[in-house]
């Protein structure tokens, strides 16, 4: 396809287009950092991707075009279809899946390059110096781990894999796999002329490592892991970019690698977990003691009374948790809030960084229900406002409003930043039943004097509250 252009012209055009691609990617990501321009940002980055893809058909000396077009149609078509139909609640695992595909693609590039070295004459193989070979192998390793690890993360969040597999000495086994993979990789680099069997073994071990690394990690920690694999894939893409001397891949890969690393740290911090802690220890299994020392009792209230309480409030802060999304109550909750706003009540949404299944996920779910983003505040913005709120309405959230995180040094969630819902004059908690949160820790908020419990399905309770507010005239 590139044959109708002289090679040097084609190369120049491709290089120029990649410069534009890198520019559009960075501009797009920058625009995505504000809700006002975010939509424009993804479109800008999308234009960059389209340009880069189309121009790459011009590469001199390429063949296999029918195969290439078929592969793009199959991969793109399936991804487009699945991306359109996925529910917003399932977004985290879809991101994991698409990310894993990127890691797999980077590994495939490395595999083709290494296999070509294996089949070439010894003197031709020398065209790839040891540095390039090492980068190809490093990208293959990271990309493979990201591929199989992301698939496991997808399976766990999708509910296909329900158990966390742990056994004694697991870390030791993982370490052995890492050492073996690195040793084989090093031998490939030193030899410069690997056998096909060595390459297959190398990839098999790297893929296995992704599986054994991810299987023991609990579902609650998965967002951090997905974010980490996102950064991994970025690095793998950059390494393969060096191998192919492709500037667009190097820049895009490194930008994502660095941004992804930062994002991973931010998430881990918001969850009060260090990255090492997430990767090397399970959560919610074993020695978590149900926090004792709860005083007071759970005081239920009827939705009708709760509705009246909100209708005559001046300021209501809603604290939504994943329980609200599971009950699909966000539309009803927003309907309730619109009623309150019409009555002159000031309504705010307070979002904890780990509300939902990954940071920012709850915002997406609220946006889907139609809640404008300027009514939504994050933890740092809203925490001082709880003292002036008449009602804090906690819906399906638990650990993120548990005051023991501030007070009880023995609690596993001690030190985790929480929303200070307990500082509001009245706290209403909508909750399915009386059980503890995913961590199994008793929530002291529920037992406070100013807290009332509204039991029931979040969607039904929100409907009842709407009735009560309307009746309160």
């Amino acid at each position, binding site marked *: 396809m590139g044959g109708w252009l002289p090679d040097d012209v084609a190369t120049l055009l491709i290089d120029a287009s990649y410069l534009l691609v890198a520019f559009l990617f960075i501009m797009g990501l920058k625009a995505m950092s504000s*809700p006002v321009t975010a*939509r424009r940002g993804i479109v800008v*980055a999308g234009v960059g991707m389209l340009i880069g893809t189309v121009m790459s058909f011009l590469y001199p000396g390429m063949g296999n075009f029918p195969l290439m077009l078929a592969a793009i149609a199959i991969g793109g078509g399936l*991804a487009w279809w699945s991306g359109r139909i996925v529910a917003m609640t399932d977004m985290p695992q879809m991101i994991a899946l698409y990310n894993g595909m990127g890691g797999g*693609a*980077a590994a495939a590039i490395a595999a083709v390059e290494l296999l070509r070295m294996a089949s070439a004459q010894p003197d031709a193989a020398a065209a790839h110096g040891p540095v390039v070979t090492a980068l190809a192998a490093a990208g293959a390793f990271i990309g493979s781990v990201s591929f199989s690890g992301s698939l496991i993360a997808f399976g766990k969040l999708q509910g296909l894999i329900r158990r966390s597999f742990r056994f004694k000495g697991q870390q030791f086994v993982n370490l052995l796999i890492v050492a073996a993979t690195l040793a084989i990789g090093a031998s490939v680099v030193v030899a410069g002329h690997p056998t096909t069997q060595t390459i297959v073994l190398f990839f098999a071990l790297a893929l296995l490592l992704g599986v054994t690394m991810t299987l023991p990690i609990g579902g609650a920690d998965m967002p951090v892991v997905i974010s980490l694999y996102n950064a991994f894939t970025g690095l*793998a893409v950059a390494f393969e970019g060096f191998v192919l001397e492709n500037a667009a891949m190097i820049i895009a890969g490194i*930008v994502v690698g660095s941004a992804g690393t930062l994002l991973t740290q931010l998430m881990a911090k918001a969850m009060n977990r260090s990255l090492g802690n997430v990767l090397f220890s399970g959560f919610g299994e074993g020695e978590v003691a149900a926090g004792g020392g709860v005083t007071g009792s759970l005081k239920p209230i009827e939705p009708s009374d709760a509705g009246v309480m909100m209708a005559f409030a001046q300021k209501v802060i809603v604290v939504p948790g994943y329980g609200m999304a599971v009950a699909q109550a966000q539309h009803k909750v927003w309907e309730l809030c619109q009623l309150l706003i019409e009555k002159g009540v000031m309504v705010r949404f307070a979002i904890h960084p780990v509300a939902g299944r990954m940071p920012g996920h709850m915002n997406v779910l609220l946006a889907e229900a139609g809640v*404008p983003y300027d009514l939504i505040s994050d933890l740092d913005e809203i925490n001082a406002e709880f003292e002036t709120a008449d009602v804090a309405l906690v819906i399906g959230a638990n650990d993120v409003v548990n005051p023991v995180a501030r007070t009880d040094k023995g609690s596993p969630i001690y030190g985790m930043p929480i929303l200070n819902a307990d500082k509001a004059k009245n706290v209403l908690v909508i909750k399915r039943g009386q059980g503890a949160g995913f961590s199994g820790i008793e929530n002291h908020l529920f037992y406070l004097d100013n807290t009332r419990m509204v039991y029931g399905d979040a969607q039904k309770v929100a409907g009842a509250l709407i009735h009560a507010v309307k009746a309160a005239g």
Partner: protein
Amino acid sequence: MEGVIALYIVMLAAFAGYEVIARVPVILHTPLMSGSNFVHGIVLVGAMVALGGAGTPLEQAIGFIGVVLGAGNAVGGYVVTERMLEMFRASGDRKKTKESA
């Protein structure tokens, strides 16, 4: 590519990535992770080059899988990011869309 030049590119790109993300509000973290996931979908281009130069049937098969996966990363990443960001609206925007509806 000259090794030192490549290192310059890496350093500058790393700073760019860090700076761009450092100012992102938490409310956009999920779409942003998805957006950066889309950006490394550029791996598609590399997979195309790998498949384009593949000779043996084994290389062709792996190259083919690479392009399928790369295209999935790029297209899927775009579709879900766009869907999420499309929903973010300010109070003012809402009224506008209501009136026009």
